[in-house]
């Protein structure tokens, strides 16, 4: 019996080759392990969505409407009710049996329309409740803050009502997606309509809410109106949440301006518009022309607050329940029967965002966040109330038609305050994504 003697060098060489050989397959299957570490991948038979909505504070009514829409979306995703817009969505991978065979569960938190509360909520829902996606919100500051958190935590954020250019501009994130239109698109849509209605020789005075949304709204409206020959007499910033705007309105009276553009939203819009009308601005004649007021971003709930003051006022809207397409009719019917009132545009965008996320998971065949992001990027769809829509890959902004609306002179009821003047097609509202700068950042999966 003889033993082959292996010398030390041969032993080391063979061990190295064996080690490399065993380790090599790991290189090719590492993606499979990465999928397991995407934040909050569901392990049981449910998947949890988190809604961060303002249930207290100035936008509480809007937040309540958003929550109703989310709850309805979950119902429809789980196969209950009439399905809402699931049957109208084209292409649609949703089957009404949950998402990827898992029932959708939901948690929600009150964002109070405050960035810190919204971030705290979202963090809690991700860390404690295991939310795989966060959606909702009624302010751009909130959206920017939460999508930044979601980027850090590797959780997809489908923002609710946010209209600032910054959300998908300089502050855009790979993990953040916006269905709602933005201030730039409002300006592009509204400019020609008010130009035609009020003429090309106008002098505009801006009152602007002093925060990210107000600044971008003012910038966009100035660009749109100056491009058609209007002059900007003054642009005055007003503190967010002012109750009495009279001291800002009185200088307008003797400024030589013949149009007042109110870059305000929410309670600010209600108060500034109501008080502007009380100061007789709409009865005035300046420079031989009738004085006009424009509110670039309209909301049905805010229009209810402003009462008669909205009559005849032009603005823009992301969507309106009175649109005539099948998807809008289906959603309005579903929402109206559930809650006894038509949905607001905030409710619509939130419902759509929930469906779009769920659909992206189905198409990707996984909840793995980077794969879902890929499924959403560049996704072209229809049948969700805004016609043919593209979730643009470059900035995660939806490119779709938007509405120019006007306060109705003789509304039938409190849900009929606005009339659609024009549906501005997607080709007109589409813009170069590079104009607002920003970087999407990486889509690496994170463990939370």
């Amino acid at each position: 019996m003889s033993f082959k003697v292996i010398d030390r060098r041969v032993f080391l060489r063979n061990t190295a080759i064996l080690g490399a050989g065993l380790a090599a397959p790991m290189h090719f299957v590492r993606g499979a392990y990465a999928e397991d570490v995407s934040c909050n991948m569901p392990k049981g038979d449910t998947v949890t969505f988190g809604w961060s909505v303002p249930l207290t504070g100035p936008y509480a009514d809007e937040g309540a409407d958003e929550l109703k829409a989310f709850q309805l979306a979950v119902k429809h995703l789980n196969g209950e009710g009439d399905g809402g817009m699931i049957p109208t969505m084209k292409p649609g991978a949703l089957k009404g049996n949950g998402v990827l065979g898992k029932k959708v569960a939901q948690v929600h938190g009150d964002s109070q329309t405050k960035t810190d509360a919204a971030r705290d909520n979202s963090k809690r829902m991700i860390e404690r409740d295991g939310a795989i996606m966060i959606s909702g919100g009624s302010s751009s500051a909130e959206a920017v803050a939460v999508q930044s958190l979601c980027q850090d935590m590797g959780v997809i954020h489908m923002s609710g009502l946010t209209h600032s250019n910054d959300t998908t501009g300089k502050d855009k994130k790979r993990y953040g997606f916006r269905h709602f239109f933005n201030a730039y698109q409002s300006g592009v849509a509204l400019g020609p309509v008010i130009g035609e209605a009020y003429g090309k020789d106008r002098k505009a005075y801006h009152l602007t809410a002093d925060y990210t949304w107000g600044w971008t709204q003012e910038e966009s409206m100035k660009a749109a109106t100056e491009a058609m020959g209007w002059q900007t007499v003054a642009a005055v910033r007003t503190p967010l949440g002012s109750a009495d705007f009279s001291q800002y309105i009185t200088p307008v009276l003797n400024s030589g301006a013949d149009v007042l553009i109110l870059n305000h939203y929410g309670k600010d819009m209600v108060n500034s518009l109501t008080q502007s009308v009380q100061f007789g601005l709409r009865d005035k004649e300046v420079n031989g022309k009738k004085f006009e007021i424009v509110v670039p971003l309209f909301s049905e709930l805010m229009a209810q607050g402003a009462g008669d003051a909205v009559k005849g006022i032009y603005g823009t809207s992301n969507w309106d329940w009175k649109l005539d397409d099948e998807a809008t009719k289906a959603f309005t019917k579903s929402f109206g029967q559930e809650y006894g009132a038509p949905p607001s545009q905030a409710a619509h965008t939130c419902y759509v965002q929930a469906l779009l996320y769920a659909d992206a998971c189905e198409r990707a065949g996984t909840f793995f966040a980077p794969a879902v992001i890929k499924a959403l990027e560049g996704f072209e769809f229809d049948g969700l109330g805004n016609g043919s829509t593209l979730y643009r890959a470059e900035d995660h902004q939806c490119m779709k038609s938007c509405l120019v609306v006007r306060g109705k002179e003789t509304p039938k009821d409190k849900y009929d305050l606005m009339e659609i003047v024009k549906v501005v097609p997607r080709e007109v509202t589409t813009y170069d994504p590079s104009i607002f700068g920003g970087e999407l950042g990486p889509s690496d999966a994170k463990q939370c």
Partner: protein
Amino acid sequence: MDAILLQILNGLDKGGAYALIALGLTLVFGTLGVVNFAHGALFMLGAFCAVTFNKLLNLESVVIDPTQTTAWGSPLEVRTPYVEALLGDFGNYLHDYSVPASIVLAIPVMLIFGIAMERGLIRYFYKRPHAEQILVTFGLAIVIQEVIKHFFGANPIPQPAPSAFGGTAYVGQILGMGQTLAYPWWRIIYLLFSLGVIGAVFVFLQFTTYGMVVRAGMHDRQTVGFLGINIERRFTVVFGIAAVVAGLAGVMYTPILPPDYHMGMEFLVLSFVVVVVGGMGSLGGAVAAGFLLGILQSFASMNEVKAIIPGIDQIIIYLVAVVILLTLPRGLMGRRGVMED
């Protein structure tokens, strides 16, 4: 010139609101020594008296019309207000004047609420430190707000001024100065109303025996007690009157600012600054400071002023408060010994 007159008018109008709210605040402080941070909530409650009155006038009979449906497929409800059906033209008139008419509801509601608040909660904090009074009244304000939000929602609810006063008063034309000087009728009404209420409170305190006893109690509660007068009961009534003043200020403000549950907080801080500048517990001081700060705030918002000092409109009130308190530590008309223990 028109611009300056307009700002003066605007300042007086703002000052009227500040003075009216601050008057109740300082009245409570002067009599009971309580720093009432729920005073803004009383202003808001008054505004919601107007909303409630309007809702009562709008109570409707509902008939289902099976031949028509809503956009979401439910049968259409045809609604007819009872008031208009029962009272005809007078119902329409009442509906039009619902804001001033709601004073009839606001006075008893606010009086009862004020007295209940003082008897049920505030009196237990008379001898407690001011910090505790602030905490408990602030907490109460939040509770009142949330209750209102629960019943009325968070959205502002517009209350139109009577149609006769809904438009603009061409003040310039009235004064023979051209058409450019114009101001909303209702704001002028509000200014006159504020002056009327302030005057009534002063007359009550200055020229009635009841008021004289209250004033005596403000100076020396113990001696008035020795005379066999139940000064506590009178102070309770004064708290109720302060609540009524805040409530009336709220009622009449609704056509200017569509009320929501949070509107009281927006005025509370400003009114508190007014009270401090005027001098804690000084009624005259509160009124003078209210008008002074209103006018200064209005002028600071002029574009010409802001071009020289950007952002001055945001800080003017607090800047003036600092300057006045540095030069007159008791405020414009503050009394010796008040808040100096």
